[in-house]
């Protein structure tokens, strides 16, 4: 296993829904210590890693990857001892039936089952129950036991364990532990000409919230968000005019998504670097999803920002899949493109 997939495994298996990212911070620290000049955590839980530059460039560069994953939170307890849950971040309810999950700090195993197919009404078999009709069964025999084992607010994550399938990797939370893995690789590499602030952000899945304050704190000249983005390349009935991204075709450069628009010179810079270096890349279908760049670009008086991502199938479901070459490609592209950033690329008055 390469260092990249080794780190992806560690980070994918770490647990941290939005607002409860401690497990991921704990997994990141040992990967960063000794490779950066300073590590600290801010008031909302963002993990900052400062790597001083060589002094050759006056820029301050912010690179983010979000630590939080989509998951569930305990919102109640049934008389039988099952845990009522609601989603944290966007999850289609239809992926929940039949799942095994891990509950709380102690990772109690739990399951989400529905009424047996033999007993369900025929009409119910084509519509997944909403989260309000589902509950997590941890084996508690009554309400008191359930409340004691998993109090209100307890986070619940998918129990999926990382595994490698040839050139692909399968696991939970590649959105955005893939981005975290790439940022770790950049921070462990050679010093950059500029001061680099690598920030592992919180609460991206509930509104790009950690990145917003991180960008305020760093007050950078430019922001780069590293993501695990959606690949929607399953075969479809209708001819697919916009397959979002595809696995194996390199990192995806974002022109715009639901949360921001990449400034044209910054966009051209990344494309030109990829072309000049012969690095595979693709464009992400515009207009879908939000990323940390949405929080960064309107920090203070505005920060030019761009999102570059590893295509991942089935994000926001219990199992995502990516191609190792795309992850390595993201690290290479961002490394080279960042090293060649110049103030002229960021200045729009010129």
């Amino acid at each position, binding site marked *: 296993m390469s260092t990249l997939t080794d780190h992806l495994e560690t980070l994918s298996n770490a647990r941290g829904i939005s607002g409860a990212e401690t497990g991921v911070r704990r997994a990141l620290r040992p990967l960063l210590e000794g490779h950066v000049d300073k590590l600290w955590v801010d008031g909302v839980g963002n993990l900052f890693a400062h790597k001083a530059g060589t002094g050759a460039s006056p820029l301050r560069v912010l690179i983010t990857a979000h630590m939080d994953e989509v998951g569930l939170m305990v919102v109640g307890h049934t008389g039988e001892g099952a845990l009522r849950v609601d989603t944290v971040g966007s999850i289609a309810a*239809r992926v929940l039936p039949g799942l095994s999950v891990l509950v709380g700090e102690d990772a109690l195993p739990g399951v989400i089952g529905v009424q047996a197919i033999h007993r369900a009404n025929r009409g119910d078999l084509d519509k997944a129950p909403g989260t309000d009709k589902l509950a997590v069964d941890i*084996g508690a025999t009554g309400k008191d036991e359930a409340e004691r084992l998993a109090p209100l607010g307890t986070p619940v994550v998918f129990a999926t364990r990382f595994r490698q399938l040839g050139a692909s990797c*399968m696991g939970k939370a590649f959105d955005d532990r893939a981005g975290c893995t790439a940022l770790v690789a950049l921070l462990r590499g050679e010093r950059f000409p500029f001061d680099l602030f690598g920030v592992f952000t919180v609460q991206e899945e509930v509104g790009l919230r950690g990145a917003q304050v991180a960008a305020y704190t760093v007050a950078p000249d430019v922001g780069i968000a590293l993501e695990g983005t959606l690949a929607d390349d399953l075969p479809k009935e209708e001819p697919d005019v916009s397959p979002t991204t595809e696995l194996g075709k390199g990192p995806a450069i974002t022109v715009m998504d639901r949360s921001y628009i990449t400034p044209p010179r910054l966009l051209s810079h990344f494309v030109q670097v990829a072309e000049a270096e012969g690095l595979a890349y693709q464009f992400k279908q515009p207009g*879908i999803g939000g990323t940390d760049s949405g929080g960064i670009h309107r920090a203070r008086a505005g920060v030019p920002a761009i999102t570059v991502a590893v295509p991942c199938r*089935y994000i*926001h479901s219990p199992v995502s*899949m990516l191609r190792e070459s795309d992850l390595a490609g993201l690290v290479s592209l961002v490394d080279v493109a960042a090293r060649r950033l110049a103030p002229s690329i960021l200045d729009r008055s010129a």
Partner: protein
Amino acid sequence: MDTFKLLQDLADAPGAAGREEGIRETLEPLWRPLADEVRVDSMGNLIALQRGSGPEPRPAIMGAAHMDEIGLLVTGLEGAFLRVGDLGGIDRRVLLGLQVRVHGRRDLPGVIGSRPPHVLPAAERQNVLPWHELFVDVGLPADEVAALMRVGDTVTIEQPLIALKSNRAAGKALDNRASVAALTLALEALRRRHHAWDFCAVATVQEEVGIKGAITSAYGVAPDLAVALDVTFAKQYNDSDSGTFELDKGPTIGIGPNFHPQIVKRLIEAAEGEEIPMAQEPLPGSSGTDAWGIQLAREGIPTGLISIPVRYMHQPVETVALRDIERAGRILAGFVSGLEEDFRARWEDEV
């Protein structure tokens, strides 16, 4: 035998209906030291004989539990993806995001792909997908998929057994590996316990596609009596109380046209005699179990049924109370051990 470990070995083994090799190869070495003879018949049923102590010709009782599990069948290759269909009654509601094992030229892990919510209209996020929109992804490029997989390969659920609180376990295929575990515990108990009758334990095949293995193995074994072991519906938070049974309050004994009243009576007595909790389960028609097939083998076989309550049946997280498995094994062992040499002749004379 530690019940969780036993159930883990049995439940984690693959064996979709008609492709039971994986579970049979796991089970055979467990049964061999407990039996006088072990054989596999032409359908693939695993049959273990424990000779009784009565004089020959000895009557024989068959204990049957199906070892096949529900799964999927590869119905087509589409580039790097596999199209699949149902094998035995899987619940489509659990398929999106499900981890699976594809049994091709070699076994490969995979996942059933689900489109991300970002590209789904809100109204579609609860839609359960039809088969033609479901694909298995093994993460390999199309040429490797074509070399390793063929139409007709089976796919099983990948969900290792997990321990829950209160001595419960959840996993795939507890329908009916929970009963295979109980049958194994009965074999173990009867090894140490006197029984006049021959005891024939049968792990049957192809129950989920129509009780096939039970029908042929009952013919082949030609027992004088039979007891099938299967699972029944446990009470759960999202189902009604009618026709469901509490977990960890003991197995159920089936009552109805599928079951001979003398066997029902003796099974209940066996439970009561050993102070094992159980419930009586009225089944007015087909029990939907091996018992339904066995009853009509040859000239007709008096048959009974012991069922273990399971939550979330035919889903990857079927949930069972481990003590109910142990209790089912003890009731069966008590029943077999208590059979007098002339048990059947006696009540036949009474009619």
